């Protein structure tokens, strides 16, 4: 049985990946992902992982190399952040179209410019439509668990899609938190060997990445969309299996004191824990506040979101990225469109906050609740605001 230990989250993620019998990793360092790259290299250098570590010259090549290796049938891993993820962008939809079960950690960080190394979600949001399964984690335990679980989801023969795991940069990657690290034996029991359906090997020659024009292209796009939608069933099954083996249950949408809540807040990633403290504070004052945490970003959990917010009067969506000149933050537009056709739904507010690592203390979350409660005439609904930004 695993014992409870404390460790820096990025290092712990590398340790967890090290338990997964990966065959190959190609990682290019970037703050705040670097500790994953460095610790994986240590594990390979010490012979603790029997894998090829390819010291690529860029993130573009990191993603290209894992695509090649995964195509060859190797269990392949990478990790990146911010500019590195933007640099990979071109290749992400290709990896999913080829149905390659690559897994990737993203230490979420603001995208330039100006250059900024701290946390927000502006790196992952532009990758939204690349056809990857996309998961957000809140704490060390989740980061570790999802790093292992991701392989099992990705490699399921009914999924065969790449997975990214979003871990807030610094705010989470550089924290030392207590967690339970599964043992090698436990991971071996949970994660079966990868059985690819076609590989780049002369034993059975295949062509991958062929050229398709209008006579086939739309069907290929539809197939990818269906594959991503259908992956939800498997994601839920794998999470259930994990809960049975390790006692930690995961759902696409998590709630906290939401059942009777009149005002709900929705968060993604590590901010959920701070928001939770705000809920406790507000509850102590008699405010019926609650929290909804969105863990599964793609495939988007429509039914779960609808069910979680149905009975609330107001919903505060929080965004850590901007859709410039658009309808608000990306999470806001997604949630709004999910609820559009619902007869019973809350009014929605959007606060864009914590950009470029700006600290968001508990009081700010309390402030957001107070602000929407004061808006009794619902004059501010359906708009977005940059929270705590100097004019």
């Amino acid at each position, binding site marked *: 049985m695993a014992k409870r230990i404390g460790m820096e989250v990025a290092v712990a993620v590398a340790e967890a990946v090290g338990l997964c019998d990966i065959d190959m990793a190609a990682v290019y360092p970037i703050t705040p992902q670097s500790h994953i790259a460095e610790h994986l290299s240590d594990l390979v250098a010490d012979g603790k992982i*029997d894998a*090829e570590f*390819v010291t690529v010259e860029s993130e573009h090549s990191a993603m290209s190399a894992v695509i*090649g290796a995964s195509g060859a049938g190797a269990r392949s891993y990478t990790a990146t952040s911010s500019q590195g993820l933007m640099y990979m962008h071109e290749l992400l939809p290709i990896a999913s179209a080829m149905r390659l079960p690559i897994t990737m950690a993203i230490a979420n960080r603001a995208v330039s410019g100006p250059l900024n190394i701290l946390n927000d979600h502006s790196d992952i949001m532009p990758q939204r439509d690349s056809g990857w399964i996309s998961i957000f984690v809140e704490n060390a335990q989740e980061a570790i668990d999802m790093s292992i679980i991701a392989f099992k989801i990705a490699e399921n023969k009914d999924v065969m899609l790449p997975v990214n795991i979003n871990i807030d940069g610094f705010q989470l990657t550089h924290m030392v938190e207590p967690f339970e690290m599964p043992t090698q034996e436990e991971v071996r029991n949970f994660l079966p060997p990868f059985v690819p359906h076609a590989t*780049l090997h002369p034993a059975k020659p295949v062509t991958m990445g062929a050229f398709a024009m209008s006579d086939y292209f739309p069907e290929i796009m539809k197939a990818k969309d269906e594959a991503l939608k259908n992956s939800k069933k498997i994601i839920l099954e794998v999470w259930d299996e994990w809960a049975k083996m390790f006692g930690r249950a995961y759902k696409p949408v998590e709630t906290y004191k939401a059942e009777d809540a009149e005002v709900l807040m929705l968060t993604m990633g590590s901010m959920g824990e701070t928001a939770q403290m705000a809920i406790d504070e507000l509850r102590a004052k008699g405010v019926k506040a609650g929290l909804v945490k969105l863990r599964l970003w793609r495939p988007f959990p429509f039914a779960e979101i609808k069910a979680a917010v149905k009975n609330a009067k107001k919903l505060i969506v929080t965004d850590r990225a901007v859709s410039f000149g658009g309808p608000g933050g990306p999470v806001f537009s997604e949630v709004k469109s999910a609820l559009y056709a619902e007869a019973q739904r809350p009014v929605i507010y959007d606060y864009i906050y914590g950009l470029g690592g700006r600290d968001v203390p508990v009081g700010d979350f309390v402030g957001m609740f107070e602000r929407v409660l004061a808006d009794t005439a619902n004059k501010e609904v359906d708009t977005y605001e940059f929270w705590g930004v100097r004019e």
Partner: protein
Amino acid sequence: MNIVENFDLYAPRLINKKELLSSGHRACSGCAEVLAVRLMAKALGENTVIASATGCMEIVSSMFPTTAWNVPWIHVAFENAASVASGIEAGLKALRKKGKIDDRYVKVVGMGGDGATMDIGFQALSGAMERGHDMIYVCFDNEAYMNTGIQRSSGTPMGASTTTAPAGKVSSGQKTWKKNMPEIMVAHDIPYVATACPSYPLDFIRKMEKAKSIKGPSYIHCFSVCPTGWRCPSNQAISMGRLAVETGVFPLYEVENGHYRLSPDMPKKLKPIKDYFKGQGRFRHLSAEEIDTIQGKVTTEFKKLTEKAKFLK
């Protein structure tokens, strides 16, 4: 007896009869680039995995749901064939070591055009070569971005007219000298670098086989005549390739562990470059003086090469 003139007699014995790039692909008639790719596949044999860049050769050979490839082949993007190949090599190495696949030796090959290699994929190639992967990279140099409509690349020769560096009233086409890609690869200190041309099939095949026998990175730069882009008759691709070699415009040589060697096919005395230029529409606008200037550069560069072959034997 001249081997090329008696090709049918020799070919069955000297060349792998199996077609690993099958006919029915969509290359233009008279394309020497696709001929070169076909010869490369023959030389490599079946235990090969190829990663291709975007470009003519990718488009003509992989129209979904068909494929011309009888060896495992992957295309991902324009600028990353070398990194994809490096990942395949690493993946196969790990799987073999762990006993997850059969133990046969498989050669991984990256391939791309001059644009994919010398311009947009330059960094990826440099990285893969520097890391020392056990792979071959082959550049099929037709001296422009042909797939997208004959735009200039850093492999386009001085004076050639392309659609983005056209000859006009105040311009003579390409204003820069062709990037010396094989020398850049030599500077990577890799075990084997060679130039080749499908107009010399046996020389090309021998070089491919040598590259295949080397454990480590090797680079082949293959001069590939494109009748469509060069505006020459489609039945002239082979003779045009021979003229490029005979004039010293594209000398055939190899560099093994730093030792230079000119191929035996290189003539003792070079023909004038105007013999090579005159059959091609892309050079038609050049004046006698401009051709002289280019001739001067070709002569100098060839002299440098012969000196290297002398001193770095």
